[in-house]
């Protein structure tokens, strides 16, 4: 019986040893991620979500109509800016397809927000 425990104990040590040394025998040395900064840029989804919550606050009578309109306008402007940026990126990638889109960005923002709000309300979670 002692032999069984001896073998089991040795297997335990070998397994741990394997977990620890196996990376040194892997093919290539991957560069660790380093001190990469996290992406703290604002996304359109976040703006839509903020507008959604703002609208809920207004409908729940927690903020005044004036504040609601003012904040909503600010969010719309922000969304327009983000849409513009997005279009610029697309234009750089596909110059022909993006022609004319930039000037429409501001007009599209409000329609886009409304669409996204509807989507947000209907989605789960």
């Amino acid at each position, binding site marked *: 019986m002692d032999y069984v425990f001896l073998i*089991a104990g040795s297997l335990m040590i070998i397994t*741990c040893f394997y977990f620890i040394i196996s*990376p040194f025998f892997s093919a290539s040395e991957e560069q660790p991620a380093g001190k990469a900064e996290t992406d703290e840029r604002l996304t359109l989804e976040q703006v839509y979500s903020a507008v959604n919550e703002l*609208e809920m*606050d207004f409908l729940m*009578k*927690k*903020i005044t109509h004036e504040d609601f309109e003012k904040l909503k306008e600010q969010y719309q402007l*922000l969304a327009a800016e983000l849409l513009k940026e997005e279009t610029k990126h697309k234009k750089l990638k596909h110059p022909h397809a993006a022609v004319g889109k930039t000037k429409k960005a501001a007009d599209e923002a409000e329609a886009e927000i409304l669409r996204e709000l509807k989507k947000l309300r209907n989605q789960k*979670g």
Partner: protein
Amino acid sequence: MYLIGNIAIYLGVVISLYGIIANIIGMKRKSSKWLESGRGAVLSLAFISSIASFMLLYILGTSQFQYKYVASYTNESLPMVYKLTAFWAGNAGSLLLWAFLLALYAAMVVFSKEKKNPMMPYVSSILMVNILFFFTVMALNANPFEMTDRIPADGKGLNPMLQNPGMILHPVTLYMGYVGLAVPFAFGIAALILKKMDSEWIKLTRRWTLLAWLFLTLGNVIGGWWAYLELGWGGYWAWDPVENASFLPWLTVSAFLHSVMIQERKNMLKTWNVSLIILSYILTLFGTFLVRSGILTSVHAFGDSNLGTYFLVFMAFMMLFSLYIVMTRYGLIKKDSSPIEAYFSKESSFLLNNLILVAAAFAVFWGTMYPLISETFTGTKVNVGAPYFNKVMAPILLALIVLMGICPLIAWQKAVFEKFMKNTLWPLAMGVVTAIILFAAGIDGIYAVVGLSATSFMLGTHLLEFARGISARRKATKENVLKAAFKLTMKNQRRYGGYIVHIGIALIAVGVIASHSYSTEVLKTVVAGNSITIGEYSLKFNELTEHTKNGNGIVVADIDVTYKGKDIGKIKPEKIFYETWPEPSTEVAIKTNWSQDLYVVLSSWETKDKVTFMVKVNPFVSWIWAGGIIMVIGTAFALAGGRPTSFRFQKNKGTAQTGR
């Protein structure tokens, strides 16, 4: 078995030490191979701690009394479930359980989808420092696989107080909560070391913190339930030092869970948040120190001064290390943090809530430690009992309940005082109506009435929040009530999960206030055939019988109970005389309905026809357990969903910071 168990313990020390070194080398040389090897060390630790835990369960289950731990906490006749749960009955087993959970959590963290995150080697190293500590203490002082000099014929058996279903779950849930807090602590420190002042660490550990808080809640509620059933004094919370030790981190983590929302949304309170998580983690070590050291008298303490010293040294080390990291990064945190913009705002109400929770933690800490402090300075140990805690904590918890009723009514964006006052009207009316009804019903005790009215106000706020939310959604989407309610809660699980938790707290508050203020008690000696009357209950004592079960002598009193003149059956309080334990244990008999508990204890007897009973009627105690269950459901609901909070406009920062 002895060999495998000991190999696991010593290997634990070596591997955790290696893992820390591998991570340090990996970070210095920027070598993924070394970092990968460090990850392998974590996996090995999870592997060996699982084997050691399985071995301990096996030797406990098969009653191998050649092991000191098995002989000290079990005996042949102990039911299998208690043989297995003796795992955490003593110091050595508890330390192994802690190391096992910590290694498992560490493996889950380092092999998560964030495994390439630059913070991970630091997080892994901090967790391994903890694991190293536990394995070292086991190797040096409390080895669960230590052998006896002579194999005893039978073990000493398990403390009868621990032979209760509550004790199967209470320690494990508390440990899971304690251990869980090591994860956000490690991330917080890692973020500071890397000078990452954003909210990433908070977002990555939100679920870990919530999970730890859920287990702490569960552990505290089950602990109260166990005390109520097993200790036989009629209460559920005695402000015992060890109870306080598990309540302290619960208070600080509750504060943390609220204040992180401010950092996520408004980029504020960064120093506060990191300090809170450090404090919570240190308090988990402090709690364990209290349990292990035996420096304070408690029904829960294991009492081993040696282990206490280990914990004290480790706690001091971790505290100094954390303080050093925070102090050296303080300037950076301050520079990157936004100040509070308005006195009347969501963030200031959350800050106030935090201050109250921390004040509560301080009051509990002071009362718990006062006997030691007084002994150090005056030479006499002044014991601080329940009256101090009740007196100090009652106004603090009342303020907290009132604030819980106010906070949800304040908007995140552009809070307007007039709107808030308008929204407060209905909940306030609910509180006032409650007070009038209570006075009209002849309920006395001004403090209790104020407490119950404040709770009603708080409950009213939350019900109104649900109602207004549903109505707002219906206005926007034209959905029916049920669909709107479902979608509303599912779309913001974090907020509504929190509201469910608050509703659970309201139920607990009703239970605590009512049972403290309106409990009645009778201690009476009766002869067979005579009755005891208490409130609307009448108890007729029939006989005292004796039988044996699993080698233990059991004395049972047979009592017929009537409520409002109606027969509601029998009640049978017991005293159990354990074969292996010097003192008998009291088995309380309880009859519960929605509003009160009839609580009967068989105190003593002169003959089998002349018996003394302690009978209590405790109002609304079942609400405490129901509230605890609702709190757990609410937390699980918030845990299951809950996307990160969205950013908000800031006057001083524009929109640069986001809450993603």
